[in-house]
């Protein structure tokens, strides 16, 4: 069953309105002498909204957004570049892949958050410790996808390209690279998401700027309104980045069949 777009939007807004109403009532209307959602722990929707507006109007938020964005982009770019290079190398040299296999598995199994203190020790409280954390997250996603992409090149496409007379370099450019990229881009959302997680978690654990820092500071002084405002801005920020990634993806993967939309 398909909903009319306007009706769908109405229902989506309705969910938000009801949730906010419950929140507002729970925080302001005592039921049986008790608040369901005490303001101290849950704040109030209106307070959160005005805090968000205030953060933007005063301009303090821009600096934090910029820092988090910078960390995210750097983590994504460095992690992807590393993942692509190592992924290609391992896929084309099975011996290297076999030697490093247990260590790759070991590092990947490690919850990356425990690395944060080490990175802070090594790289200080500036952006680079956060970038490093993001890189360790992004790297493995891209690495596994590129590795798979190179390994899973259709043998027929490869044989056909060889029969055309492609050299190793031409094969790389025309066959291996596009195949690996298609795999990498299919994980683009996940990779960008993890870059952001690395940045925010890193900030949260120790920094002097960024959205994670903002939330951590508010939490430190029991400023629940500040925590919720930070979370709200973070969520909106992720949506914007995700929208941008979707645009890039559409542009780069035009050659791929759309899952079901074109089937009829």
């Amino acid at each position, binding site marked *: 069953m398909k909903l009319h777009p306007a009706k769908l939007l109405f229902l989506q807004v309705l969910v938000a309105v009801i949730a906010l109403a419950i929140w507002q009532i729970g925080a302001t209307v005592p039921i049986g002498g008790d608040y369901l959602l005490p303001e101290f722990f849950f704040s109030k929707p209106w307070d959160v909204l005005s805090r968000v507006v205030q953060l933007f109007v005063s301009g303090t938020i821009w600096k934090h957004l910029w820092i988090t964005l910078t960390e995210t982009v750097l983590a994504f770019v460095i992690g992807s570049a590393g993942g692509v290079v190592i992924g290609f190398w391992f896929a084309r040299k099975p011996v290297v892949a076999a030697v490093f296999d247990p260590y790759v598995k070991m590092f990947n199994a490690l919850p990356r958050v425990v690395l944060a203190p080490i990175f802070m020790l090594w790289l200080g409280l500036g952006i680079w410790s956060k970038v490093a954390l993001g890189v360790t997250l992004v790297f493995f996603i891209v690495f596994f996808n590129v590795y798979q992409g190179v390994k899973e090149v*259709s043998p*027929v*496409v490869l*044989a*056909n*390209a*060889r*029969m*055309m*007379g*492609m*050299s190793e370099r*031409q094969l790389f450019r*025309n*066959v291996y690279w*596009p*195949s690996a990229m*298609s795999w990498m881009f299919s994980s683009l959302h996940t990779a960008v998401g993890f870059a952001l997680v690395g940045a925010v978690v890193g900030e949260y654990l120790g920094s002097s700027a960024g959205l994670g820092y903002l939330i951590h500071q508010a939490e430190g002084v029991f400023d629940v309104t500040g925590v919720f405002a930070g979370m709200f801005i973070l969520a909106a920020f992720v949506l914007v980045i995700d929208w941008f990634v979707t645009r890039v993806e559409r542009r780069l993967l*035009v*050659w*791929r*069949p759309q899952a079901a939309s074109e089937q009829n």
Partner: protein
Amino acid sequence: METALRRPGDAMASPGAGALAVALDDVSISFAIKGRPVFKAVAPTSLHVGDGEFVAIVGPTGCGKSTLLNATAGLLKPAGGRVSIFGEPLAGLNAKAGYLFQQDALMPWKTALDNVAIALEIGGTRRAEALAQGREWLGRVGLARFTDRYPHELSGGQRKRVALAQVLVRDPKILLMDEPFGPLDAQTRQIMGTLLLRLWARDRKAVMFVTHDLEEAIALSDRVVIMSAGPEARIIGDFPIDLARPRDTADIRLDPRFHQLHREIWNQLKAEVVKTYGEEMP
């Protein structure tokens, strides 16, 4: 049956007039799978294809005819025997041959036009020139309006046309075709067959056309070579096809001579084919 084959050595000619495009002499092919005895796919076999000759290789599914084609392409190293291309022993990939695969072999990330043009570009042709020739060839296979489509936006038959253009644009001296129209429906197969013959008639390349469809083989070729069921497949028949050209692959099937040839070849093959197909055949 051996007598029907041209003897090896009678045409070890120097490249030039009358040179053999493909000479397989006592070629045998084996596969080594770990932990199992060596699988002898093709017993020592000789097959000669003259320049400009259209040879169809027919045999039951899995008899090693594709293997023989891959050995000619240089994609596979024979266990024994010699492969010569225009009198020269084949080393590495066969640069004089174009290969049309059974499965989809187009690069899915390139448009139809780019798929054809790349075949020239890798040889050093300038892009503008490659694109112009690519357009011309796509026009010849009837896809002038589909140059900007990606493979997934084309039908199976259209993809085969692009693949055909991709192979022919390089102007190979030898055309190797591995059940190229196998996955297509009957009507499309006949249309593709007629298209292939029309394009082939322009400059008559040597063709090795592998198929399991005897009718298709007779309709297209100058000579039908029959392979036995594997393992240790070998050539068990070699029949010249004297039907007049140009042919229409649909109309030719109504020709009395076509039926005569079909019956002749079939009578000799029956035992072999029934052995492989079992109860499936009448």
